C-alpha cells in the first residue's frame, strides 16, 4: 500500500496505466467506509467497482447488486482481456443479483460468463429530458445539403468503418448530402485515411471531440443520426438524437434497438441497407417528418422513473 505523507491513499481521478492498483486501493477505502456506515444494499457499476462491492459485502454481509453497463466482450469485439474478464466473472459469481442494461447484454452475461438465468435481469436505460437551454438551441446550417452524422467514440465497438462505407455508397450517387463524423478515438486517424482513400473527403467532415452543448448543437444541425455499433450494450445517444428531433438509424446489435420502434434498424454489416436508409430519410420528406415526430413522442415516454421502479422491485426482493 502506497500512502502519502498524510497517510492517505492517492487517486489519480482518471484511468491511469496502473489501473488495477487503483481499483485495489479503491476497494480498500470501500472496506473502511463499509465498516463505518449502516445500509441495506450494495450496488456496484461495472468491473472497476466489482472488487469494492465484494469487499463491502464481505465486511457487512448485506446483499450485493452489480450493474453491468458493458462487458469486456463488447469492448473487445470477442477477444477479452483475461484479467478484466476474471474480475467481471468473480463479481458476477459472488453477488446476489445482476442487472443488465439490455437483453443483448443479459445474453452475453448468461452465455459467456455462465451465470444462471434467474440471477440476471434487464432494466433498460432511459434518457433525461432536455433542459430548456438545450431545447432552445437553434439549428446551425450554413450548407444547403442534408447532413448525416455519426457521433460517438471512434473505436472498433462503434463500427465507424461501416459508416464510411455506407457514406461512400451514398456520396457516389447523390449531390445533396454531406457526412460528419463527430468525436474522437483510437481509430480516428485510420478513418481519416479511409475517407481520403475513398475519395470522398470533400463531403465528409471530422469535428474532433465535442464538449457539452456542442454535442447538442451538432445533433440539432443534423438531418440523420447514425449509430452502426457492432455491439452496443445500450446506447443512449440515439435517444438524445431523437429528443433533438433527428431521425435515427441504429444497428440491430445495440441494446436500445430492443425498446425503440420509431428508428430505422439495420444490421451493422449491411452497408447497402444503411445507405438506402440514409438516402431515404434525406430524399423523402414523408419519412423524415414521420420519424422526427414519432421519434420525439416515443423518446419522451422513455423515462428513468420506469427503470427506477424496476430496480426498486429488485432491491425489495433481496432485502
Amino acid at each position: 500500500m502506497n500512502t502519502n505523507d498524510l497517510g492517505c491513499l492517492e487517486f489519480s481521478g482518471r484511468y491511469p496505466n496502473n489501473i488495477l492498483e487503483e481499483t485495489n486501493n479503491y476497494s480498500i477505502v470501500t472496506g473502511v467506509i463499509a465498516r463505518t456506515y449502516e445500509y441495506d444494499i450494495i450496488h456496484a457499476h461495472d468491473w472497476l467497482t466489482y472488487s469494492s462491492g465484494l469487499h463491502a459485502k464481505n465486511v457487512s454481509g448485506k446483499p450485493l447488486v452489480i450493474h453491468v453497463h458493458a462487458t469486456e466482450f463488447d469492448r473487445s469485439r470477442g477477444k477479452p482481456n483475461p484479467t478484466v474478464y476474471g474480475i467481471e466473472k468473480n463479481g458476477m459469481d459472488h453477488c446476489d443479483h445482476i442487472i443488465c442494461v439490455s437483453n443483448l447484454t443479459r445474453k452475453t452475461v448468461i452465455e459467456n460468463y455462465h451465470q444462471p438465468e434467474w440471477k440476471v435481469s434487464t432494466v433498460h436505460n432511459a434518457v433525461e429530458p432536455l433542459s430548456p437551454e438545450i431545447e432552445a438551441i437553434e439549428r446551425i446550417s450554413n450548407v444547403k445539403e442534408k447532413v448525416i452524422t455519426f457521433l460517438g467514440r471512434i473505436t472498433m465497438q462503434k463500427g465507424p468503418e461501416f459508416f464510411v462505407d455506407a457514406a461512400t455508397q451514398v456520396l457516389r450517387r447523390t449531390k445533396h448530402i454531406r457526412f460528419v463524423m463527430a468525436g474522437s478515438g483510437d481509430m480516428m486517424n485510420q478513418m481519416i485515411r479511409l475517407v481520403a482513400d475513398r475519395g470522398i473527403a470533400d463531403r465528409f467532415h471530422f469535428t474532433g471531440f465535442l464538449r457539452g452543448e456542442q454535442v447538442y448543437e451538432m445533433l440539432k444541425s443534423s438531418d440523420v443520426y447514425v449509430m452502426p455499433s457492432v455491439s452496443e450494450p445500450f446506447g443512449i445517444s440515439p435517444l438524445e438524437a431523437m429528443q433533438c428531433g433527428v431521425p435515427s438509424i441504429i444497428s440491430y446489435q445495440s441494446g436500445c434497438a430492443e425498446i425503440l420502434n420509431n428508428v430505422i434498424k439495420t444490421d451493422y454489416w449491411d452497408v447497402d441497407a444503411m445507405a438506402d436508409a440514409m438516402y431515404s430519410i434525406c430524399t423523402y420528406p414523408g419519412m423524415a417528418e414521420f420519424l422526427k415526430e414519432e421519434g420525439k413522442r416515443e423518446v419522451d415516454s422513455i423515462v428513468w422513473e420506469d427503470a427506477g421502479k424496476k430496480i426498486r422491485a429488485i432491491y425489495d426482493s433481496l432485502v
Partner: protein
Amino acid sequence: MKTICFYFQIHQPYRLKRYRFFNIGRDHYYYDDYSNEDIMQQIAARSFIPANRMLLDLINTYKGKFKFAISVSGVALDQMEVYAPEVIDGLKELSRTGAVEFLAETYSHSLSSLIDPVEFQSQVQQQTQKIKLLFDQKPKVLRNTEMIFSDDIAEMAYNMGYTKMVSEGAKLILSWRSPNYVYKSENQPNMKLLLRNSQFSDDISLRFSDYTWKEYPLTAEKYISWIAATSPQEEVFNIFMNYETFGNLQPAHSGIFEFMKALPKFAFDKGIEFSTPSQIMDTHKPVGTVSVPLAISWSDEERDLSRWLGNKLQKSAFNTLYEISERIRLANDRRLKKDWQYLQSSDHFYYMSTKHFYDGSMHSKFSPYQSPYDAFNNYMNVLSDFIDRVKAQFPDSVDNEELNSLLTTIHNQEREIKKLQSELKKVLTENEEKLVEKTPVK
C-alpha cells in the same frame, strides 16, 4: 323468403423486390417474381383450386339453385395467367354454369377512387374488359377495393353507369339498423346497396377455427339456424369474405370445406335460398337510405381508411403516386402502363401501416417487409425510378395541360395529313394521263 348472398373476393398483389436507391435509374424491373410465384402457387393449391372444385360440385348437385358472386382483381388475374392458370380454368367453368356472378372492381385493387376519378373509371373499365374477355360476363355490380364506399364514390359509380354496389354494413352508417335489407344511397338515390353482415361473415372467415370462441365448433346446421331465427322481415343475408377463407385463412383441417358443402342442404331444408347480388337488388326494394360522408371500408374495428392512409408515410407515398397520373395517362408505353397498374395496389400502402406495429401482432404475418419504414423506403425508391421514366417521356418543363393540347394538335395534324394524302392520291390516279409528260416524238 330468406336468401343468402355469398360473395368471395380474390386478390394478390405484385410484390416488389428489394430495390435500393442505387438501382434507381438503372433497374426498371420492380417485382419479386420468386416470391409472387411461390405465394400464388401455394394459395392456389391450398385454397383457390379446392374451393373452385367444391363450389362447382355444389352448383351441379343443387342444379343451379346454389348461387354466389365472385370478384377478382385484374392484378390477380395477371398473376394467375402466368403462375396458376388452373385457377382461371376453374373460374371459367364456374362462370359457364350461369350460377356465378362476377362483380366489377378496380384492376389494381387500388385506392384511386379516393383521389382520381378519371383513373378510377379507367381502372374499372380495364377490369370489366378483362372479365368479359376471360369469363364472358359483363359485370353489373360494382365492388370498390376493400369495400371502400362514400357518397362521392356512389356518385362516381353512378356516372360510370352502375346502379348497384356492395359495401360494408358498418355501424357508423347503419347505427341501429340491420344490414339484412337492401338500401340505397342518400346522395345518389339511384344507387342500390347491399351491405355486408359482418357478424355472420366473420363467424366463418375469422372465428371458424377459434376454439376460444363460445360458439366453437360452428356447424352448418347451427349457422343456418341463426339465419332462420332472424325476424321474418329480414330477408337478405350478405356474407362477403376473402376467397382465401377456404383453405388458407381457415385451413382445410379446420373442416371449413365440409362446413361449406353441408350448408346448402340445411339452408334449403329451412326454405332459405341463395342468390346473386344482381338478383337481389333487382327484386327487392330498398327500405331506407344510407349517408356516408366519410369513406368506410371493411377493414379493422374502425371500418375506415386508417389501414392504408393512417400515417404520414402512407399519405405522402399515396400523394406522390397520384401526382403523376395525368402524365402517365398520356403515355403509350405498354411497360409503363403495366407498372402504373401494379404500383397502385392498395397492399403497398397496407405494408406501411404502423397501426399494429408496436405490439407486433397480425401485421407482420402478411407483410414481406421487416418494418413499415422498410416498406415505405422500398416503395418510394421504386416510385422514384418510375416517375423518372415517365418524365423522360414527357419532360417536366412542359406543363400537363400544355402537353395535352400539344399532343392533341399533333394528333389532329396527323389526321389532316393522312386525309390530304389520300385525296392527293385519288386526284393523281384519276388524272394520270394528263400529268404524264408528253415525250417529244422524234
